[in-house]
């Protein structure tokens, strides 16, 4: 323990030069802006900044990238809360309770509570990375395809069973999302599936679906109902962004639970922040005394997923540093950067380049602190920027979504597709069909199919592999437990409603 702390302190000392601190601050700010732009996430932010690291030493280069990585995680929540347009998949859940708070004139509070939750989640993830990386790496290395399949299935089932009022509506959206996720060329067999245009061969980018369903769908809804955002007082005070003692007490446990979920899920390759945020949200809704508040501006519904999202950063670095396995697009880019700086990712990384790795972890820690301060101080900037354009917000969001969809891979086909998903998003909102399950299944469909295939190959076609492996069996039991809970809970709710009606 003491040795670990000394190593970490050594890393901090390396980062405590004015140049490195300035680099981290710059990276954090750039990351925040990139994360806030619809369509751009951590991978895009890191990829954009790599050329700047060519002339830097490894410590400064990794400091810059750590700032950007953490910054994009912080930035993703801004547009989710302010204009209900998530920048990337993990920020979807932020919309669910962040935007309703914005509509109630508590946008500053929502940004404040989400910034604090992001900081706490990031802090938790980094602490786990520092102290428990080797132990966790040993545990996770034993996970195989059946365990990953069950884990992804758990994520899908949890959101389908616990999101919204109707399980059947959530199921419908989940299977629609699955079909969207399966469009394109099946790279194992070479067959194409539902490719009605050549551009669909590579599949449908989930960011296009997100921007369409949340950005365009929301704009159309606002145009129909002539919605105007309630932005609160023009000159609000700093204390209004901060939760008071009572509110902080209410969100502290959700933050902690979200951080734990985010770190654990972040460690697992391919799961990442998206599934962590959905699980954290579903978990909080399940634990809440009054789940009906969720989706209407419940601070716990904002705090837990935000903490989970940022905690997944620390978690995702565990397999990268200890085994050289990247679990997400962002960490895959970092793996390339390690190689670019002459480091050898894998079990020997900590032995051969321990000083640089510890400096990188310290950089992540410092970036987390910078981001908390800068994001809290910049809340008036964010909210006032929206205030300036509030009257024209609909058209500006539409224009930004169109350019963002084009910027994904410079294809106009994506922009048309986004418009179609926008219309679909508007219709689903009208019929109260939950969009969360659809988005999650679009994101997870191909991984789920791939792990399912691998599992059956391992067992030579036997489905028993999912119940003969202990971890897989435990997750399966959790899925069944969630299903039973959901059914029983719905029945109790129905009975309560019937009793209330009868009493009236």
């Amino acid at each position, binding site marked *: 323990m003491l040795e670990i702390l000394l190593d970490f302190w050594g890393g901090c000392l390396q980062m405590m030069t004015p140049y490195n601190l300035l680099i981290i601050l710059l990276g954090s700010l750039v990351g925040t802006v990139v994360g806030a732009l619809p369509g751009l996430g951590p991978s895009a932010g890191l990829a954009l900044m790599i050329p700047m690291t060519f002339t830097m030493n490894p410590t400064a280069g990794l400091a810059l990238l750590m700032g950007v990585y953490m910054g994009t995680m912080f930035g993703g929540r801004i547009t989710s809360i302010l204009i209900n347009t998530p920048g990337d998949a993990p920020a979807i859940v932020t919309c669910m309770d962040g935007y309703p708070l914005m509509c109630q004139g508590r946008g500053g509070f929502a940004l404040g509570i989400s910034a604090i939750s992001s900081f706490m989640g990031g802090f938790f993830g980094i602490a786990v990375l520092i102290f428990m990386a080797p132990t966790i790496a040993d545990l996770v290395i034993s996970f195989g395809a059946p365990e990953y399949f069950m884990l992804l299935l758990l994520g899908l089932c949890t959101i389908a069973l616990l999101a919204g009022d109707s399980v059947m509506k959530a199921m419908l959206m989940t299977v629609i999302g699955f079909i969207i996720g399966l469009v394109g060329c099946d790279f194992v067999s070479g067959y194409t599936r539902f490719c009605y245009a050549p551009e669909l061969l590579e599949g449908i980018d989930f960011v296009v679906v997100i921007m369409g369903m949340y950005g365009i769908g929301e704009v159309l809804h606002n145009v129909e109902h002539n919605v105007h955002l309630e932005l609160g007082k023009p000159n609000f005070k700093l204390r209004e962004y901060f939760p008071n003692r009572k509110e902080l007490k209410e969100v502290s446990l959700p933050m902690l639970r979200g951080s734990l979920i985010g770190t654990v899920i972040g460690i697992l390759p391919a799961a990442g922040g998206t599934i962590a945020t959905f699980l954290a949200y579903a978990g909080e809704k399940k634990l809440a005394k009054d789940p009906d508040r969720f989706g209407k501006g419940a601070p716990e519904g904002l705090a837990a997923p935000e903490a989970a999202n940022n905690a997944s950063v620390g978690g995702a670095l565990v397999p990268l540093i200890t085994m050289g396995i990247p679990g997400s697009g962002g960490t895959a880019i970092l793996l390339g950067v390690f190689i670019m700086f002459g480091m050898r990712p894998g079990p020997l990384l900590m032995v051969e380049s321990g000083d640089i790795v510890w400096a990188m972890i310290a950089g992540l820690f410092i970036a987390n602190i910078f981001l908390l301060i800068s994001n809290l101080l910049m809340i008036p900037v964010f909210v006032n920027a929206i205030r300036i354009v509030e009257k024209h917000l609909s058209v500006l969001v539409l224009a930004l979504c169109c350019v963002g969809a084009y910027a994904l891979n410079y294809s*106009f086909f994506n922009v048309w597709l986004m418009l179609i998903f926008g219309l679909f998003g508007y219709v689903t909102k009208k*019929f109260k069909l939950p969009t969360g399950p659809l988005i999650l299944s679009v994101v997870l469909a191909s991984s789920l199919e791939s792990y399912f295939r691998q599992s059956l190959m391992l067992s030579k076609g036997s489905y028993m592999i999912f119940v003969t492996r202990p971890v897989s069996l435990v997750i399966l039991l959790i899925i069944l437990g969630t299903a039973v809970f959901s059914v029983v809970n719905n029945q109790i709710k129905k009975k309560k409603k019937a009793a209330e009606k009868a009493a009236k």
Partner: protein
Amino acid sequence: MITLYRAFLVLLALVAGLMMPEALGLPKDSQYTIGPGFLPLIMLGAIIVCCAILLLLDLKDKTNASVKKESIPKMLLYILATALLIFCMEHVGIVLSVAVYIFSVIFFVERHPVFTAAKVSIITSALIYAIFHVWLKVPMTICNFF
């Protein structure tokens, strides 16, 4: 009675049904594992079943969802303008199309003063160009003709 919600569910089931032959034509298994048609077939079947169940549930407890009649022209204008924007982005040029789109919607649809429309349109287009083209290096034409 036909409602918007019921029509939507029928349409969804119909689309799933139309996609079914392609899923049926794909191999369901390959040696020890599933083929490319296995999951699509199950999922399309599930869509049809879910739509049928939701339709039955709706017969018991009707979902009331309608589009505000007075908002339909404005919504249609927004959708058509956005479709036109995407077409022009490809054939006329991205930045010019975005500028004209923002100006037109603010001035003609939202009925704001011409000066406001011009100001918002120019500033936004310039910002989009600066962020996406200059900084992020996204290939982006101002106008395809010059």
